């Protein structure tokens, strides 16, 4: 099981720093990580990621520049590109594949793309090796969850975690605003989802302290840490420092 799924915002603090950060993550044993593509209208993000995206855009971290910066990087965890649909649509599925090819990106997490809305686009990308990560929210019924997992199928144990996992949104709301979370409902939710699927699960939204992370791991799922990392990174803390503390800990 992948012990942690960190999230970073591309271009924050800078695009130049990105290769170093990815390499650093990998050296800590991080198998996969999410990389946010800064967007003008991040409707599912809380204040921390909004501000990070804003800073990154201000520093010129456009989608193409981000993909350029990723091109050729091999010393990296598998990257899950966390993004909104419109920038991808504007690039187009074909061109996107070309741009993604030289990068460590292995999957796409498209916040505002439910299955079925862009079937051709999504199928093209999956065929090219860029599956769209299934998201399961607290509002997602079990029936709908089954459908989502079917529409965005597990490529099987031969594929890397980045292409297999389903993202379990731990609570209502947007990214990052979590306080110390009651993990009871998450635990129940994971048990419930286990009845319909055996694929790897990541749990995100509002996780931060080592204890919560360990608790998620104890449930057999991979915790996602996003806003906390982005904030600490912005305040000058080193990635290794931040991650290493979060890779251990008791539930």
């Amino acid at each position, binding site marked *: 099981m992948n012990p942690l799924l960190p999230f970073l915002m591309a271009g924050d603090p800078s695009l130049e720093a990105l290769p170093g950060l990815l390499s650093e993550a990998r050296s800590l044993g991080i198998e996969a990580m999410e990389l946010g593509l800064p967007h003008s*209208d991040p409707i599912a993000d809380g204040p921390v990621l909004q501000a990070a995206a804003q800073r990154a855009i201000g520093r010129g971290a456009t989608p193409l520049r981000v993909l350029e910066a990723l091109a050729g990087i091999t010393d990296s965890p598998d990257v899950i590109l966390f993004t909104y649909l419109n920038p991808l649509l504007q690039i187009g599925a074909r061109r996107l594949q070309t741009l993604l090819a030289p990068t460590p990106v292995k999957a796409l997490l498209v916040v505002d793309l439910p299955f079925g809305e862009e079937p051709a686009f999504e199928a093209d990308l999956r065929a090219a090796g860029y599956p769209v990560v299934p998201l399961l929210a607290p*509002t997602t019924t079990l029936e709908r969850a089954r459908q989502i997992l079917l529409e965005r199928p597990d490529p099987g144990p031969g594929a890397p975690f980045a292409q297999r996992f389903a993202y379990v949104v731990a609570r209502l709301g947007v990214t990052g605003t979590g306080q110390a979370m009651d993990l009871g409902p998450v635990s129940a939710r994971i048990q419930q989802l286990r009845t319909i699927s055996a694929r790897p699960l990541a749990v995100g939204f509002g996780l931060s302290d080592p204890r919560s992370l360990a608790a998620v791991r104890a449930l057999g799922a991979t915790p996602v840490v996003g806003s906390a990392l982005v904030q600490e990174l912005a305040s000058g803390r080193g990635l290794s420092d931040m991650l290493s503390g979060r890779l251990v800990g008791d539930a």
Partner: protein
Amino acid sequence: MTTGFSLSSRFGTQSLGGCYAPETLMQPLLDLEAAFRAALADPAFEAELKTELRNFVGRPTPLTPAPRLAAKLGLKALFLKREDLTHTGAHKINNALAQAILARRMGKTEIIAETGAGQHGVATAAACARLGLACTVYMGVTDMARQAPNVARMRLFGTRVVPVEAGQGTLKEAVNEALRAWAGSCDRAHYILGSALGPHPFPTLVRSFQTVIGEEARAQVLEQSGALPEVVLACAGGGSNGLGLLVPFLGDALRRVAVEAGGHGMVLGEHAARLDGGRMGVLHGCKTLLLQDEHGHTAETASISAGLDYPALGPELAALVLDRKVEVRRASDDEALLGARQLCEAEGILPALESSHALALLPALAAEGVATILLGLSGRGDKDLSTYQARLGI
């Protein structure tokens, strides 16, 4: 629980619209569509809505012939559909009230809304007070400043107005924030979207609650003049009053025209004219004509009118335009101001800045030889007084 949409979520030959929502909002949207369909099938809903539209909102609104303005412009006849006379002063109340009734049927106790010009916010605040629902309205800080009277009105109705600092501080950012808030409270809250935009079923919902405008207007213009006009004309922000007025005329052999905000220039960022200036894209849950830069980032917009500066044209209206069933024109800030002044002086009616964009097109239509026009006066201009004073030197 519903697991799939039943109503079509797409518009026109290019399949605009859709439901590009974060997963958290998918079930609420599915539930909303189901509740909407159930309401439409329930005579009690229709009866309640109709009663409230009559007794509270003041429907039917009049159709006012404007003979002096018509004569001044060289038109044979001009008719104004008077949404400015509704309670709270704009067409927005038709939708806000209907959705509030729907929300109460769904057992929701809280309402979230965004607002640009403030008219939708005021309408929602009024509907919520009327129905006893708690209400929070998100509003960009720029809009709060330029539509200050509407902020005060919302607060008087007991609504919490939350300032949105991000970006340009206008409608787009308010929608972002409202969507975020809804994702955090969708178990108990309904989001009353204010225009025919956003993820399915909102565009359909909003349009269907606004076509009362065109249905009334069509019957009224036939009654008053014995004929349909050559042109039916409305301004278009998100598109709710445009669709509301124009859709009931879709089967008629006449020109349907929507007017976008031309702002103060032709360069991206200086206007909110989505037809020429926009490309297909996805914003706030739907695919439509969108003002955006080459990176797929939403572009800044400019308009003197807070209700018309939204960077996307609602998907159904955009589809009608692309399929050539509706024409789109633009009017600049200055033309809108002139249009407002002319209506004030010729007919004693103070239009909202939004509606003034439709008025601004009248001289051009007259010059094209059009003789009879029906114009949607979507709202009153009381909220825009300070702008009119400053810009017209009153």
